[in-house]
């Protein structure tokens, strides 16, 4: 099958699923709905693999023309290259697994068909985002995924007690994303101003032929792009929406807020590498922001007691890690971590989903414990995920994270030190989570304990698959010290098929250093494991109640009060301003001003009527007065003009 046709099918399939489920979903049986939704995504995945296998160079598929001005022409055209196809594989692959999982997870939900409709729509927009061959199409997808994420976060809007909170969380996410979108928008405008095109290839070409740019244009363009990235990928300062987004159903958190959408920022940066390479200042900013994010998020995760919140903050932290890599210009490394992160974070979320499902919507880990025996598969897979993210040797996370650490060390040792701190915290809170959840004694009470059960196949199967991936995902990009010929396969794959990436080359450390790094990293991970085991499993002490927390714990549990700060800095003033403008300026000043004017004019009537006294002699007097005025005026005029 011709490539472009394949591509179109990849795009069309989720849309078809969306259409069918959206229109007829209510009538159709649940099995069919779920099956269809999952099926289309899976077929898309298979098609993507064919593309992947037959991939060489870059190919543009032009669909139709959106707008055509002599200044600027924008096509709905798509791009097949290493990067886009890789992202497609992740999206469709993980996507189909999570669809499968959802079939079990949402089975009792009345909004079943709606859920799958939204999911398919999301997959569609996400594919548009990554496959688009120009920034405009990318922006299409960019806004689209934002919309879907809104829909899915506030999916349970009419939940009895949490309904309003859910919808508010969705709103928050949408607005925060919108702020980022504006950044992207401005970047696009500047790009148009500079290059009169939005095609990635054209812009890259122009830059390679070192087109002259006015002043600091590139800096601002890249900066705006990065602002957009912070919006989608939940970096400081726009990260607060992601934890709240956990209000959505867990599969959504797994798909959108761990595996795919939040990595859109990284994708954007990698895609625009040719721009960032020319803007070192921006790269530094990215690096430091990423650093701060990863550190703070990890810290906040330390004392979260909501199983999903922990994972959410760890996601933020991991994303920060990727941005650090991007800051160093190690694009393939960042993308490698995106991949592995997609594996194990999806795994973790689904695992937590399975736990929550089994616990009947209980999310507080203080109510859990000892689930290892009750839900073995979930436990096992969750353990793998935890080890992977914590960086236990030879699991996927180990390699990808190690690469980033290596880059850090190579560029700037102090950064490396800070990263070590962050990584340590990651290991600590992950294992804390693991042990509190699965080990020790069950704390949820017997009634609940009796009901806890392992999830069905449709939910466990994805877990297993993802677990396998999380284990072996590292093989994609082995460091140079193992099997030389297979090493850095991912780097080569990416750099050969993607605009601009063939220009940049990751730093490779000498053998001994990297060896030392790995050993050091693994010791940290294992150490953390041991410590957590001792504290939470052996001593069996559990997370404290909110009141009991001491200073730093409270700080961590309260997320450093960022939400409150934002509230008092931005939200409240805006509302106050709105009130002021609406009530004072608009009504009291402008509208009543108009009224006052009108009344003032009309009330002079009260004066003017007094003139009509009703006395004849006055009338006669005024007539004579008028006459005299005439004459006086005439004389005056005569004397003036002659």
């Amino acid at each position, binding site marked *: 099958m011709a490539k472009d046709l394949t591509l179109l099918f990849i795009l069309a399939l989720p849309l078809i699923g969306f259409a069918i489920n959206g229109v007829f979903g209510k009538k159709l049986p649940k099995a069919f709905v779920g099956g269809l939704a999952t099926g289309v995504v899976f077929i898309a995945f298979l098609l993507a693999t064919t593309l992947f296998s037959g991939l060489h160079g870059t190919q543009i598929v032009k669909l139709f023309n959106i707008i055509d001005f002599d200044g600027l022409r924008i096509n709905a055209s798509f791009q097949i290259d290493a990067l886009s196809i890789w992202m497609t594989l992740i999206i469709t692959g993980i996507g189909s697994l999570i669809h499968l999982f959802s079939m079990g997870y949402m089975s009792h939900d009345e909004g079943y068909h709606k859920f799958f409709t939204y999911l398919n729509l999301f997959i569609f927009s996400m594919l548009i985002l990554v496959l688009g061959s120009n920034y405009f199409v990318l922006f299409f997808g960019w806004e689209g995924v934002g919309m879907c994420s809104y829909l899915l976060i506030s999916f349970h809007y009419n939940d009895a007690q949490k309904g309003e909170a859910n919808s508010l969380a969705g709103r928050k996410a949408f607005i925060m994303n919108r702020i980022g979108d504006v950044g992207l928008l401005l970047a696009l405008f500047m790009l148009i101003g500079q290059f009169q095109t939005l095609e990635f290839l054209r812009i890259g070409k122009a830059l390679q032929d070192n087109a002259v740019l006015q002043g600091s244009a590139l800096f601002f363009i890249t900066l705006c792009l990065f602002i957009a990235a912070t919006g989608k990928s939940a970096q400081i300062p726009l990260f607060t929406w992601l934890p709240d987004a956990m209000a959505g159903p867990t599969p959504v958190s797994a798909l959108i807020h761990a595996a795919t959408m939040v990595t859109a920022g990284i994708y954007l940066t990698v895609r625009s590498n040719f721009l960032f390479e020319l803007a070192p200042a921006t790269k530094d900013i990215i690096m430091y922001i990423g650093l701060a994010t990863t550190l703070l998020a990890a810290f906040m995760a330390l004392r979260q007691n909501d199983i999903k919140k922990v994972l959410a903050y760890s996601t933020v932290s991991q994303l920060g890690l990727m941005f650090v890599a991007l800051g160093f210009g190690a694009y393939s490394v960042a993308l490698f971590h995106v991949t592995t992160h997609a594996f194990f974070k999806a795994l973790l979320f689904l695992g937590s989903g399975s736990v929550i499902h089994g616990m009947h919507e209980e999310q507080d880990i203080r109510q859990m414990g000892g689930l290892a025996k009750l839900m073995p598969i979930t436990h096992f897979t969750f353990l793998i995920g935890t080890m992977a993210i914590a960086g236990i040797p030879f699991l996927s996370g180990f390699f990808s994270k190690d690469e980033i650490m290596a880059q850090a060390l190579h560029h700037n040792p102090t950064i490396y030190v800070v990263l070590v701190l962050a990584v340590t915290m990651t290991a600590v809170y992950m294992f804390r989570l693991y042990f509190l959840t699965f080990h020790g004694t069950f704390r949820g009470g017997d009634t609940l304990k009796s009901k806890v059960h392992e999830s069905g196949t449709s939910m466990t199967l994805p877990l297993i698959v993802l677990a396998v991936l999380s284990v072996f995902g590292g093989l994609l990009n082995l460091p140079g010290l193992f099997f030389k010929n297979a090493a850095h396969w991912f780097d080569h794959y990416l750099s050969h098929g993607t605009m601009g990436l063939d220009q940049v080359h990751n730093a490779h450390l000498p053998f001994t250093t990297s060896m030392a790094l790995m050993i050091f990293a693994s010791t940290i991970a294992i150490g953390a494991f041991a410590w957590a085991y001792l504290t939470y499993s052996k001593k069996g002490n559990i997370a404290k109640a909110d009141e009991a927390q001491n200073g730093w714990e409270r700080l961590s549990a309260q997320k450093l009060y960022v939400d409150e700060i934002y509230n008092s800095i931005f939200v409240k003033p805006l509302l106050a301003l709105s009130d002021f403008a609406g009530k004072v300026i608009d009504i009291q000043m402008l509208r009543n001003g108009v009224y006052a004017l009108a009344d003032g004019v009309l009330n002079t*009537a009260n004066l*003017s009527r007094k003139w*009509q006294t009703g006395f004849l002699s006055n009338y*006669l007097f005024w007539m004579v007065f008028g006459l005299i005025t*005439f*004459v006086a005026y*005439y004389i005056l005029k005569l004397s003036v003009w002659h």
Partner: protein
Amino acid sequence: MDSIVILFISGLLGLFVGMRRQPLSALVISSLGLTGAALAAYFRGQYTSPLAAYTAYIPTQSAVVILLCIVTLLAIWGGYQRYRQENEHTGDYLSLVLFSLCGAIMMAQPNDLMLFFIGLEILSIPIYVLVGIEKGSALSAEAAVKYFFTGSFASAILLFGIALLYGATGSFQLVEIQSNLAIGIWQSPMAMIGSLFLLAGFAFKIGAVPFHFWGPDVYQGASNAVLMYMSTVVKITGIYAIVNVFGQIFRDSYFYWIDLISLLIVLSMFYGYITAWKQTSFKRLIAYSSIANAGLMLFALADIHNSNIFLFVAAYAFATIPLVTINEFADQNSDDLSNWEGIAWKNPLVGAALVLALFSLAGIPPLAGFFGKFSLLWSAVPHIPYTAVLALIASVIGAFVYLRLLMLALKKPEVQVKKALSAEQTIVLLLTTISSITALYLI
């Protein structure tokens, strides 16, 4: 000339029939007379009139004569209801109207100041009587007194102006006066002051500020019928006369008096509209609106060489008459605005006529009023643009006045009581309504 004679004769006949207490036949006769006059004016020159020799002295355009006759006809019919019921003065009333109409036609477009003055008096004196025609009512008497004294005072002033003009030029013929003034004498103070006295007299006739005071009082004192006649015919005649006299005699001294005209315009419009806002009496409201409209009419003097006032005065008359008719329909003996509440619901025709008349007065296209205003401004804007701006601001206030009346009349009452129009009223409303729409053909 023929028209005048016809009117005069039918007036006399009406008088006799009136004595015989036959209001209907009196109406018929006077209507016939008016129609005949209009026809005579229409076919002027197409037949050999025995009076052709005299026609030269009263060169009033046929169009004007016809307009005056039709307006009078409508006025008579619109206000006829009361006279049909208590048929005390019907004959007197009708014939007085016809007599004064003769004067109107005489003075509308004079070529001789002497005839003009006589016409003026023939126009005025019957109206003095008409205003006071209600023997019993004190208000009517007071109105008559006020109108009489102010009126004769004004005509004295006007006469003085004529005399001064004669002194400056030695003639009453407009043509001669113009030629004499043209050869340089017009700068002589005597002529100019004479022109100012004339201006004052005219300003009184059309009721422009500050010569307007008689207006509201007299209108309020007069019956609807007389009010209709006064507020239309007198104004039309007055404005035509001033346009003619000034247009013919003083076109060379334009520079000296145009500012005064602007002053009159602005004063009249603002004063008229603003004062109208607080009125509780419909007749006074109409009076003030007519004062403001007098101001608008004066725009005709801005461009004396081709001043087209016809459209505006016609529109004004065709908008005022239905309103007063509706007032008659609302309540014969009171002119309190409270009678107007929800009146549009008593009768669909009334509603339609009312909406159109008020919008036409407010100058909203595509009604006649707009085209009148437009034609005036069209010629005025190049000469006195700033006056035009002020005038438009004033007419926004005016729109307020009319809309207030409209909203009062359209207010939906709880219980809808239907009320029938009398035959003449129906005809009047129909005619005026149609005419205010058919101004469209002017587009």
